[in-house]
């Protein structure tokens, strides 16, 4: 498991898995999209608008997962002095921002026909909007400091402070009355989704993870190389 903390090992590992990940992302995405658009049934309430969920839900999960990963690596970087944590932070932030943006846009597209509005300021939507802005601030911070050592540590501190938002996003639908529906799939209870819709959702989730991994591997490798050559 050294590739999780060591740039050299990561490079070797990345070379090893990159092609399989790329291929599986393409395959999973095509299967997932076919499932989502043609093979999955219409919902009893929403009709075929439910298909937006196959993009919306995975992107939302990945937006949160990306931030959680950044939080873990920030702790690793600050408390255990593992510089690879900072590399991950810089490389992964834009990916998370894009996932959050996809989540927001697809959510709005679903909300207009279903709820009757593009956007409301309930707890879930507000906290996701804040998550998006936090991602943007991280990206801007990465661009605006001259000194690399200061920059990466300050960004890590900011990531840690901003991680307060993470449980708020996740649990806002349980803690407060929101227009957004509560979680469909949780560990504790039986999912309230039919298997014929669950399968495409899972496939799409893995497809999103694979695409995220492809971009992340590329970005992390560039980051490692540019650090080695002291470009930044």
């Amino acid at each position, binding site marked *: 498991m050294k590739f999780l903390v060591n740039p050299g090992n990561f490079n070797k590992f990345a070379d090893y898995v990159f092609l399989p990940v790329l291929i599986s992302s393409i395959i999973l995405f095509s299967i997932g999209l076919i499932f989502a658009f043609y093979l999955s049934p219409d919902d009893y309430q929403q009709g075929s608008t439910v298909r937006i969920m196959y993009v919306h839900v995975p992107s939302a999960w990945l937006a949160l997962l990306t931030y959680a990963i950044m939080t873990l690596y920030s702790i690793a970087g600050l408390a255990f002095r593992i510089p690879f944590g900072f590399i991950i932070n810089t490389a992964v932030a834009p990916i998370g921002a894009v996932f959050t943006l996809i989540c927001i846009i697809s959510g709005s597209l679903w909300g207009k026909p279903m*709820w009757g509005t593009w956007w409301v300021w309930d707890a879930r939507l507000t906290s996701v909007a804040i998550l998006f802005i936090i991602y943007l601030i991280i990206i801007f911070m990465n661009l605006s400091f001259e000194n690399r050592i200061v920059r990466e540590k300050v960004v890590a501190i900011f990531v840690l402070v901003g991680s307060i938002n993470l449980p708020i996003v996740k649990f806002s639908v349980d803690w407060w*009355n929101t227009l957004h529906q509560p979680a*469909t799939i949780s560990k504790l209870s039986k999912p309230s989704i039919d298997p014929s819709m669950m399968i495409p959702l899972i496939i799409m989730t893995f497809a999103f993870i694979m695409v995220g991994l492809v971009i992340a591997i590329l970005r992390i490798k560039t980051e490692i190389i540019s650090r080695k050559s002291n470009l930044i």
Partner: protein
Amino acid sequence: MSLRLQRLLFILLTLAIILSAVLLILYNTRENVSYFYTPSEIDKLDIVINETIRIGGFVENDSFNKISSSSFKFKITDEKASILVTFNGILPDLFREGQGAVIEGAFVNNDIFNATNVFAKHDENYMPASIKEDLKDTGYWNKKYK
């Protein structure tokens, strides 16, 4: 006291403060930071005429009346209390009897709520249209509103 021990104590103190603060916030927000009120909460509050609020609940079964093509009358309920709502405008796709909805508007008098916006609230259940009929008989899909 060594520096290390001092540091550890500070960390524990910080965590304790944060934990108690989170509990304090959660305890107090449970009732107050809501996107909407439920009808039984409205019952307990004093009704202020013409103040904009949001009410959330189920559209009561057999309460929906179409007065004209764009003017509707229905009841919002949470099975303990219900409120009569009038609305002029376009209803969202998901809006139907037995389905959740959030309405924004103000009371025109003590009994009638005039909605300016109606949002349909979707629940966390997803199922194919084809098996809805089967399940309707067993009553599984008709979940009660909390």
